[in-house]
Every structure is written in C-alpha cells, then in structure tokens.
C-alpha cells in the first residue's frame, strides 16, 4: 500500500509544480522597471536620443529601469499579439500610424491624458488623428518621415547635370545621362526596388489617382481609374528608364542605401534618414525632393509616422506615460529633427528639405482593416505584376483594387 501512496504523492508534487510554474509566468511583472518597444529605426538612427530621454526619465524616477527592446516592422505586431495573450506586454510600444486603428478599436491601449504631453496642442494633424479613437487619445505622435531623393553630387556633376531636376521628365533625362556616364553592369541612376509600394503609390497620387475610397459606406478600389492607371504607367516608365533593381524585390532586400554605398546607384528614393548609411560617400551625398510630373512641384510622398502607445495590460501605466512624455518633449523632438525626421508638432517645424517634402504628401485609406491590406502585400504584388509584364497595368490594378475592397469591407 505504501508504494501507491508514494506514487500518488509523487504525482501530486509533479502536477503541483507544473501548476505553480504556470501561474508564476503569468504574474511576472516587476514594478522596478518598464519595457519599451521601439522600432529598429531608432536603434540605427538615433540611439542617443533614446538614451537621453531615458536619462531624463530616471532623474525623475530614480531606480526605475528602462528596458528598451528594438523590434522590426514586419513581425512586431505578431509579437505584440503574443504578449497580449500571455499577459506580459510591453509598457510602451511604437506603432506605425497605419497600424493604430485596428488595435485602438480592439481596446488594446490605455487612454492617455492628451494635455499632459508637451506641444500636444500643435501636434501634426495626420499623426494626432492616427492616435485618436472615439474622441480619446491612445497614441502620442512620435515623429513623421517624408521621403526624399538621396543622391551622389559627384556623379551628377560628372554627368553634366548642373541642378537638381524640377520635373519627372527632367529626372528621367538625367537618369539617361547618368547611365551613359556609368557603364558598370547593374548600375542604377535611381535605385527603386520594384515592389516599393511607397514610391509606386506616390506616382499614382501625383497623377491624381488614389488607392481606395468610400462610396455609400462601402470601400471601393480606385486603382483602375484613369488617373491611377496613368500614375502606374508613369511609374513603370520611370522604373524601366532609371532603376536596375529587381522588379520583384522589396525596399529592404537589399537595403537601397547598401546598394548606394557600394557605388551601384547615383540616387535612391526613400526615407530622409537614408543619408545616414551611405558609407564612404557621405561627403558626396545630398538630397532633393522627388519632382512631380508637373514642373516645379514636388511629387506627393508617403507621410509615414509613428505613435507611442501604452498597452492596456501594462501594470506601470503612469511610469510608461512619463517615459513617453520625456521621449516626445521639445528637447527630444528637436534631436529627432536634427537626425532628418519631422518633429511631431507644427510649432517645431523648420524649413528643412524633409519638412518641405511633407508639404505635399499622401496617406493610406483610414480604414480599420487597412493593416491587413499592407500585410497581405496586395500592392507589392500588383507592382511586380506590372513591372514584369505578367499582367497588363489595367488587369493588375483592377484585380488589386477588388482585393483591397474586399479586405477593407470585412466586418
């Protein structure tokens, strides 16, 4: 009989340990620190600004650890979902402005007191709107970024280009000149990845087109309207003339600035901070605003941006909000501005090239399911189909438009 008792006791102990360890993991929260999730952009572009904000924060809250963890755009939402399920979500999270709505609608974030943040009265309208839901503030604008052309002044000069192009036609002509002076195989006068939908859609908006619109409460795809089609055709023409990048790759594989740093491109279109990583060409690098097909105007660029939010399950919400205050105050925003970003408030705006580029910008449709369109790679796939000639522009655009409408119209 004794043996059975021993066995029973052993089982009880085993199960007990399992149960105890299971409950231990779910209540793993320490008040002695906060966890901050920022995107790798901060890690490569402005780690010093992050460190300075943390230092400021720790002056007011001695002994509170700030654990900054850098995430990458493609998978940070899945990781975040997993932490929401597991109850160990970060205390502060950086969200892309196109990603906010879905999460605010689901109640993933804590409401914040807008007035307690510096410059909140003059926050950039587009960014502030992306962090507002049902009249409450859930996201604090962090920074915005416009897209610019980063170019090699020496190569432009050598090709006999005296001043930066004022129209798309001029830029195309310049690309031909650059190509004639740089015969190295695979050299791109303007490096644009084929599936870079931020650039592709800029052409669409430049020609007066758009991605989707609401009509009688329903979303309809508008990529196959004549204006959008004209924009897509112009994109294909420009790509064929200027870029030797793969027609079926993205703007992160490889990074355009790596191609540029290897001397394989005379210019590239991308976020303003691309000038950070041009290797030995730092001294020969300058930027201009991507020209429109209408002479003298800038081409509308994607106004990307990030918000900072405090996840609802956080047990350190007020500490988290305080860190966000320090990271978005005038000092931090000025420092971000110095790195080539657009600060979060109009009163901080300067006259830099970024800020001028932001004057004409476009933004994605503000729909709850927009993030599913991005994750579904519908636009990227469409651009690849167009550039490779797999489908005609019209076929690719109308099939993408239908896809987008069906995703946006989900319940």
């Amino acid at each position: 009989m004794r043996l059975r008792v021993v066995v029973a006791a052993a089982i009880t102990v085993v199960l007990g340990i399992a149960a105890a360890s299971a409950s231990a993991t779910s209540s793993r929260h320490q008040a002695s620190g906060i966890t901050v999730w920022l995107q790798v952009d901060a890690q490569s572009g402005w780690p010093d600004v992050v460190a300075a904000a943390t230092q400021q924060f720790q002056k007011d809250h001695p002994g509170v650890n700030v654990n900054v963890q850098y995430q990458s755009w493609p998978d940070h939402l899945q990781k975040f979902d997993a932490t929401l399920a597991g109850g160990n979500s970060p205390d502060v999270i950086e969200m892309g402005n196109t990603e906010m709505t879905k999460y605010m609608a689901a109640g993933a974030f804590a409401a914040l007191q807008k007035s307690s943040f510096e410059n909140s009265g003059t926050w950039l309208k587009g960014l502030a709107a992306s962090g507002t839901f049902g009249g409450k503030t859930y996201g604090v604008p962090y920074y915005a970024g416009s897209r610019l052309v980063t170019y090699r002044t020496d190569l432009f000069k050598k090709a006999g280009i005296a001043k930066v192009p004022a129209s798309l036609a001029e830029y195309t002509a310049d690309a031909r000149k650059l190509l004639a002076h740089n015969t190295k195989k695979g050299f791109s006068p303007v490096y644009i990845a084929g599936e870079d939908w931020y650039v592709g859609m800029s052409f669409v908006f430049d020609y007066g087109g758009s991605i989707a619109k609401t009509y009688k409460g329903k979303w309809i795809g508008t990529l196959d309207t004549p204006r959008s089609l004209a924009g897509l055709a112009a994109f294909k023409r420009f790509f064929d003339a200027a870029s030797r990048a793969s027609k079926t790759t993205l703007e992160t594989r490889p990074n355009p600035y790596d191609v540029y740093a290897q001397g394989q491109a005379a210019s590239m279109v991308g976020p303003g901070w691309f000038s950070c990583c041009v290797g030995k060409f730092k001294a020969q690098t300058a930027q201009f605003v991507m020209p429109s097909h209408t002479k003298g105007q800038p081409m509308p660029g994607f106004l990307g941006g990030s918000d900072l939010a405090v996840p609802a399950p956080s047990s350190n919400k007020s500490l988290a909000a305080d860190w966000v205050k320090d990271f978005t105050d005038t000092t931090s925003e000025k420092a971000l501005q110095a790195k080539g970003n657009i600060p979060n408030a109009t009163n901080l705006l300067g006259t830099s090239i970024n800020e001028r580029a932001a004057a004409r910008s476009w933004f994605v449709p503000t729909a709850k399911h927009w993030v599913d369109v991005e994750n579904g790679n519908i636009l990227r796939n469409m651009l690849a189909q167009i550039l490779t000639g797999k489908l005609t522009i019209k076929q690719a655009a109308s099939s993408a438009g239908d896809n987008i409408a069906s995703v946006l119209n989900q319940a």
Partner: protein
Amino acid sequence: MTTDRTALAAGTAPPRTRRRRRLTARRIFAASVPYGLILPVVGAIAAILGYPLYRLVRLSTQHYGLFELIRHKGQSIGLHNYGLILHDPVFWHTLLRTVVFTVANVALTMVLGTLLALLLTRLSTWVRLLLTSGLVLVWSMPVVVAVQVWDWMTNFENGIVNYVLTQLGVGDYFHHDWYATAFSQLSMTTALIVWGALPFVVITIYAGLSQVPHELVEAARSDGARAWQVFRDVTFPIVKPVLLILTSLSIIWDFGVFTQPYLLIGQAKIVPSNYLMGIYLFEEGYLKSDFGRGAAISILMLLIVALLSVVYVRRMVKLGDVR
C-alpha cells in the same frame, strides 16, 4: 514483414492457461503497480499534449480576434470557422500546392538520402568521416542561420551563386532574381529543406544499411543478381522499416513547414499564390488576428497529415505482406 510479426507476438502477454485465482488485496495491489507506474507518464502527456489540444479544439469553435484576445474570452460560434475555411478557394489551392510540395520534398529527400547512404558504405574510412562530418555540420546549423546564408548566396545584387554560375558559363545569372515567381520561390525553399533534411536521413539509413548481412548480399551476387536487383530484393526489404519511419516523419515535417518558406521568401513577398499550409495558417490566424480560424486550420492540418501518414504506412505495410 515476418520478423515484425514475431516481434509483435512476443510482445503480447502469453495466453492465460492457469485457473482463476482468488482476488486478494495483495494481488490487486500487484496488478495495479504497473498502472501506478505508468500514471505519471500518462499524466504528463495529458498535461503537455492533451490539454493544449483540448484548448485548441475549443478555440477553433470560437470567434477569437484581437478584441477577445485582450479580454481572454472568446465567443462560441460552433463550426462556423470550419465552414468558412472549407468554402475558401484559397484553402483548397493551398492544400493542393502543399501536397505537391510535400511529395516533391519527401521524394527528393528520400531518394538523395538513400543514394548518399549507399555511397557512404562504399567509401574509404577517412572519406566517409569527411562526408559524415559535413553532414553533421549541416545538421547542426540552426534553420534561421541557414536561411540567412542561403539568402546571401542567392542575393539579387551580389549573390555568390549568381557569380559562380555566370563565371562557369552556365548562363548570364547577373541580377538573376531567384525569388521572382511562386514556382522559383518554392523551388528555392525545397532546395533548402532537402539540404537541411539530408543529414538525418542519410545517417539513419546508413545505420540501417549496417544491419544488412554481408553474406546475403554476397550470396545474391554469386547467384548473378545485378546491383539494382541486390538493392531491390535484399537491401531494401531489410532497411524498409527505417525508410518507412523516415518517410512518415518527413511527410509530417514537410507538410507543416513554416520557418524556411516564411524566412526565405519573406513576409513581404508572401501572397495567396505562394501559400503553403503553414503559411496559410499564419496569415489567416495571426496576421489577420483571427485566432479561432487559425486554430480551426491547424486542426484540419492535423487531420490531413494523419490521413496522409496512415494511407502511406498502410500501403507500405501491405507491400511488405506480398513479399
């Protein structure tokens, strides 16, 4: 399969011929000891496999999105998730693509694995050691690292594979995009998976081959059997149990594969026309934050893999009976 039969028979308890004895406390105790001893294992399996499976099945009958995730509470909707999936043409296309993909991967793995294992038996000791160490190195490389290396080698701008092929005069592979179409993306994934799966298969089959008695092979040879006949009639029947297990395992691995295609093709290039089942599950369940539907997909995948394996194992066992 006669050897297996006897082994099976030896394993079962001999028939009881002794007369029935009285039940005493001592005897009940003696009889229950084996059950008591197995109880911890049963308990552990129930806890680490049974319970999660139960939760998964329950999740698959719920509407469970981001809203429900935050509140840790789903909304029961019966079999609605299953209905949605079975009416989704993407599911059927993906299933077909995944079955073809799995067959190609398993066939390549097993054929190349068997050939390499046969090669191993014929090599001199130190060449064999060299090849085996190479295989072990491949085996020990983490999948994520392997994907990164493959990605570098096949890079559009300056991939070494493009360079070498061009230098060898195979063709102009400068700026060749190895990931341009769904077919090429999945072919690259197949190459990576087969490469990664070979070491385990080769070493296991090689171990199995060492069980083939030399006398049998020599006897067959002296009776005039050619190499292929020796393999078919002597070697193959003996290593068949090993091949059977390896093939079943490969089916299970390759059907549900996720890491290699997801990382090698890359999230931003994944579209319904290159979905595999593992990816479909991830896109529908995680990316769209529809966890109930994701759970339903994974249950369906479980059933399909079980079905594939059962069909295959039965066929192989039957094949053995005829011999």
